[in-house]
């Protein structure tokens, strides 16, 4: 028997698969939150809901770590990184899409290739450079090496390619220079792709672990992903407070995603990247 598209059986099958996948995606999140609410003796329980929920783990996490401070650090780092990537991506893409110059094609290919270079390859040179520039243990050291990203450039190239060329030409006829066209004509019409790039860059900077781990020594200058590590010791992991801190670390991201998820998904669908 063939199942027709659009038939009830087909729809039930599709929805069933979707629900299963959603549960699979949501489960770790739920487990993190559930564990953060369990008292110490119950941490290894396999029950879906905590039997006697408590905020004890949150108190422990907040006592052990300067949570507000490192959350603020992380926020500043992620916001600055996202803004820098959006700005650098926009400028690079603008030149590559709207200007005809020798080597434009090569530059674009090199940028695309640099996206494929794994972080581990550039980590040591970047570290050495950052140290020499005195950026150890500083916000600048966290942001500057990530201020330009190939992904951001490629996403913006895609957005600008579908921007009507005639509008840019009309602005040139009206006497506007390149920078003015970018700021006054293009950017106001590019809100959706810029917003989604901002969100993506923010999330990925927020989740950054390796680079801060290399660069940051003092807890006061640290970011939240490093803070989590505090609860993982050689004598074993302190699961309750760890999950509480992890929940606090993910809440801002979840909130951001809930507000802007439509833009992010739209932009993915349209750009076809990733």
């Amino acid at each position, binding site marked *: 028997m063939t199942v027709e598209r659009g038939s009830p059986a087909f729809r039930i099958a599709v929805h069933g698969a979707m629900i299963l996948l959603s549960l699979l995606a949501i489960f770790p999140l739920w487990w993190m939150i559930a564990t953060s609410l369990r008292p110490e003796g119950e941490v290894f329980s396999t029950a879906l809901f905590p039997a006697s929920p408590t905020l004890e783990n949150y108190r422990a996490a907040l006592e052990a770590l300067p949570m507000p401070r490192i959350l603020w650090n992380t926020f500043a780092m992620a916001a600055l990184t996202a803004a820098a990537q959006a700005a650098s991506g926009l400028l690079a893409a603008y030149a590559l899409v709207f200007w005809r110059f020798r080597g434009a094609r090569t530059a674009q290919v090199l940028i695309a290739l640099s996206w494929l270079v794994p972080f581990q390859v550039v980590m040591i040179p970047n570290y050495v450079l950052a140290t020499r520039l005195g950026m150890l243990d500083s916000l600048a050291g966290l942001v500057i090496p990530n201020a330009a990203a190939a992904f951001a450039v490629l996403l913006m190239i895609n957005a600008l390619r579908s921007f*009507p060329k*005639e*509008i840019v*030409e009309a*602005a040139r*006829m*009206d*006497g*506007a220079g390149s920078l003015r066209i970018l700021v006054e004509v293009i950017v106001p*019409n590019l809100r959706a792709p810029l917003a989604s790039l901002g969100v993506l860059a923010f999330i990925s900077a927020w989740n950054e672990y390796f680079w801060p781990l290399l660069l940051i020594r003092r807890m006061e200058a640290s970011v939240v992903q490093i803070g989590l590590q505090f609860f993982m010791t050689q004598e074993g992991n302190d699961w309750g407070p760890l999950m509480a801190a992890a929940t606090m670390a993910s809440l801002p991201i979840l909130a951001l995603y809930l507000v802007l998820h439509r833009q992010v998904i739209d932009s993915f669908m349209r750009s076809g990247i990733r």
Partner: protein
Amino acid sequence: MAGIRIEGLSKDFGGPAVVSDVDLSIASGDFVVILGPSGCGKSTLLRMIAGLEEQGAGKIEIDGEPMEGVPPGRRGCAMVFQNYALYPHMSVAGNIGYALKVAGVPRAEREARVREVAAMLELEPLLERRPHQLSGGQRQRVAMGRAMVRRPRVFLFDEPLSNLDARLRLQMRLEIKRLHRALGATSIFVTHDQLEAMTMADRLVVMEGGRIRQVGAPGEVWRRPASRFVAGFVGTPPMIFFPARIDREGRARAAGGWEPCPGARWRLPEGAALELGVRPQDIAADPSSPGPRFAPDLAEDMGAELHIHARAPGGEAVTLIRRAGEAAPSAPFAVRIPAAHVHAFRAEDGARAEPEPVATESETQWRETRSSST
């Protein structure tokens, strides 16, 4: 107002030339229409004048100033684009006034000039709207306003009417002509629509394959097309052609030996290949002609006139135009090109080949006696 001089202008994009060796001078205040099929280089030529495309070889002068390297905003040209190219995030007033804002014109003066232009184009009630809230015709008018507000030396139009429906197109055509009369600025209008070209142009420039094929008043181009291409491109329904060869006496004979245009002679070597053309308005149905019989196939009633499409067994097709009320052939008919209306083009290069002055009665007789005696 400004005159434009173009000399030896060529352009390629790394392949074959898109515009090659174009010479054109446009008098101040002229309305010039560049007509040609798509891909003929007309838009590229316009964009080079605008400065949107770097000029290749050659010279462009506006008011005697060479334009090489002058950015688009400083040439004194304003352009109206095919798809309007309005700034989507700005109001109508913002769109019209943007060039003035860029030029640093103080706000009060800017607003006054925007209002003045809006009044000319009847856009005043729409000034606060966004482009997406406007109809096609209104957007077109905003695009015109954006060009006018700068008081440019030259207006450039890149197929500005092709996105409009037929009725609006006619209306905008008249409106653009009226504006041109009122402002008197030199205008260059690019189109592939020959009706638009004929009706709007003071001077018509026909382009093909990157080259200018003919320049002249529209009526002149229509009456005396300089080449086979121009003859076939200008005119609706298009000119009808009969391939022919010159015989010993200089008559043009079509396949099968019949003479489509009896009475006309050419001073060309025997065997020279020609194409004889005639406008559907001018072709005569002639029962005495020995040529192929054309069977009426379709008749289009245009109201004021009737277009009769007919085919011969050999595949040749003709279109006859008859005024409403005139008798239209219903049975197969033969045709003749009246000698006064024949257009002939050499097959090898498409160049126009004028027949010798129409022979008088006695001359014809003389020739006929001479040919029968030989």
